[in-house]
């Protein structure tokens, strides 16, 4: 095996996460997810609700809820397996090397602490700075995330800020220690479209200035356009296709990606046409407690073959750093 640990910042290999609810059957949320992220790269994860996007985000920081268990696989960050690291070392990594921008900034900030002090706390837990240096650091960060009057923002409470401002505070927290990887879990889905664009611009700018790799997670394909270098499409706990953003939007390979992109682009172009019925993918996502043996998308796929329901399609690599799991591509011995 070739040592790729220098090339890749993060290598997720065959990650399997299962939820064991107190009452009910276990749910396999991630079923063999593999994904590589290079330094300074923006990778987007696209998928509908319940496909395991957020589980992946929390698994990367080893912050799964207590009822979830990482059953198999590895997460190599700079060659170290996060899954086997003790909690103490993980704490040093969280915030300093891998940071999370939380889903809902309104809830992710403590309502009784000032915005500045909450950013300051991140610096305090990782860097040996004195009070003055920390304050200066926070003010610089606030300016960096787009506040023109950081002094005033420093002492405001979260409820006095707008949704976009709160999201900027959360981003300031996340980038405070200059992490190598930023995970943005639905970072803009709570915001309106114009604010979304601003946040995306801000994230791109952070990536340009500091070479931060970003793993962005969203259910909205449009979010990634012009932002992500590569995209991974998730369906029912597995990544079905990874390709550069241009390929995903231009000529996607997997039937699910094709359907998603068709819907996304058609709603942009013909959304105003009242008479036209919006395109949908027929059928429903499979029940996560009893997943099919074969391709997960097979029951809804319009190009399904006999083999699709018998076993899971192997990986086919049409290009470097891209792959697709579909029987339509590559050679198969059946």
């Amino acid at each position, binding site marked *: 095996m070739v040592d790729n640990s220098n090339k890749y910042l993060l290598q997720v290999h065959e990650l399997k996460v299962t939820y064991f609810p107190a009452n009910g059957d276990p749910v396999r949320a991630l079923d063999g997810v593999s994904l590589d992220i290079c330094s300074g790269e923006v990778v987007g994860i696209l998928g509908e609700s319940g496909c395991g996007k957020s589980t992946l985000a929390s698994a990367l920081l080893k*912050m799964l809820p207590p009822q979830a268990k990482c059953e198999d696989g590895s997460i190599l960050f700079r060659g170290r397996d996060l899954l086997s690291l003790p909690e103490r070392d993980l704490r040093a990594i*969280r*915030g300093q090397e891998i940071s*999370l921008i939380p889903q809902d900034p309104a*809830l992710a*900030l*403590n309502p009784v602490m000032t915005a500045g002090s909450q950013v300051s*706390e991140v610096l305090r*837990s990782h860097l040996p700075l004195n009070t003055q240096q920390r304050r200066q650091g926070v003010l610089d960060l606030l300016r960096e995330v787009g506040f023109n009057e950081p002094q005033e923002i420093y002492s405001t409470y979260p409820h006095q800020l707008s949704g976009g401002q709160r999201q900027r505070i959360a981003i300031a927290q996340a980038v405070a220690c200059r992490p190598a990887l930023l995970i943005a879990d639905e970072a803009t889905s709570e915001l309106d479209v114009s604010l979304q664009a601003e946040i995306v611009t801000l994230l791109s700018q952070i990536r340009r200035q500091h070479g931060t790799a970003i793993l962005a997670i969203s259910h909205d394909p449009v979010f990634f356009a012009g932002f992500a270098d590569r995209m991974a499409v998730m369906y029912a706990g597995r990544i079905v296709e990874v390709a550069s953003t241009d390929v995903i939007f231009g000529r996607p390979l997997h039937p699910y990606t094709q359907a998603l992109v068709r819907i996304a682009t058609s709603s942009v172009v013909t959304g105003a046409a009242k008479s036209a019925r919006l395109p949908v993918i027929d059928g429903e996502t499979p029940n996560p407690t009893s997943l099919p043996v074969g391709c997960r998308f097979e029951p809804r796929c319009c190009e399904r073959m006999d083999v699709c329901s018998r076993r899971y399609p192997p990986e086919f690599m049409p290009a470097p750093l891209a792959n697709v799991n579909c029987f339509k591509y590559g050679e198969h011995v059946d």
Partner: protein
Amino acid sequence: MRTKTLALVAVIVGLHLVLLFAGFFAPYDAASQNRDQPYAPPTRLHFINASGFHLRPFVYAWTANTSSNQPGAYSETRSVEYPLHFFVRGSSYKLVGIYETSLHLFGVDEPGRIFLWGTDGYGRDEFSRVLYGGQISVAAGITATLIALLLGCILGVIAGYYGRWVDESLMGVTELFLSLPWLYFLLGLRAFLPLHLSAIETFFLLTGVIGMIGWARPARLIRGLVLSLRSRNYVLAARGFGASDFYVLRRHILPETFGLLLTQAALLVPRYIAAEVMLSFFGLGVTEPIPSWGNMLGALQQYSILVSYAWLLAPAGALVVTSVLYSSLADVFHSRLESSLT
């Protein structure tokens, strides 16, 4: 609403100051006896004598009726008037146990006596004893509350935050403690422990026992709160930034439990004062010569005394007033907490 709350807080603070500075507010020492005046009824304050109305009240001395065989039959000797004076020098005492002084808020000239709430069987001033006894009883209630809340807070936070088997085993223990008939348990436990202890040992034993039994309810409440706080997004976010458990507990979780602790404290203090009173009433708590509301009421176990000398019920009255004040305070805290949560 606001003025009512302020008035309530002022009254409660006032009550505690009076108890704290009992030596100043009490005209006599708690132990000083007047063997010639057992069960003297409350001294009456007079404003009018033969020469008309006086702004400064005065008292007459009690003379025991020698014809009656039952003590407590007294009549006023009208020959000498003892006017009431404020800020008088009397028996010396230590203020808050440190500063020695002999200044009292009020008093009358010797050989006159002023017994605002009468005297007990040894001729000791009931009013002074209620104040001194209140020091012991309220201090016992507050100390026991602090012990119970400290234990409850620590165990509740641990159970709620760490969850899983820690939670289950700790909550099993709280259920055990909650299901105990606490009064009988308290009596049994106290009876099991040595009877002859110094006053200070008894005090700490008593508060320790009450606090040890009482931690279960606050622990459950705190645990529930921590359980919901733990999954708040800002707690998850803090952990995502590499915060340690200790940090999360200190900055995000403990401050939020403060309102609940305050409400619980206001509820528990009167309960634990009553528990102390009950144990001392049965002779298992603080014993003579140190007065406490409980051992003062203990004298009323004799039926003849209970029916003849109503003024000896003063400690019970003080207990009721204190309990009502604390319950009202708990109400205020509770409504504040409710409005802050919604």
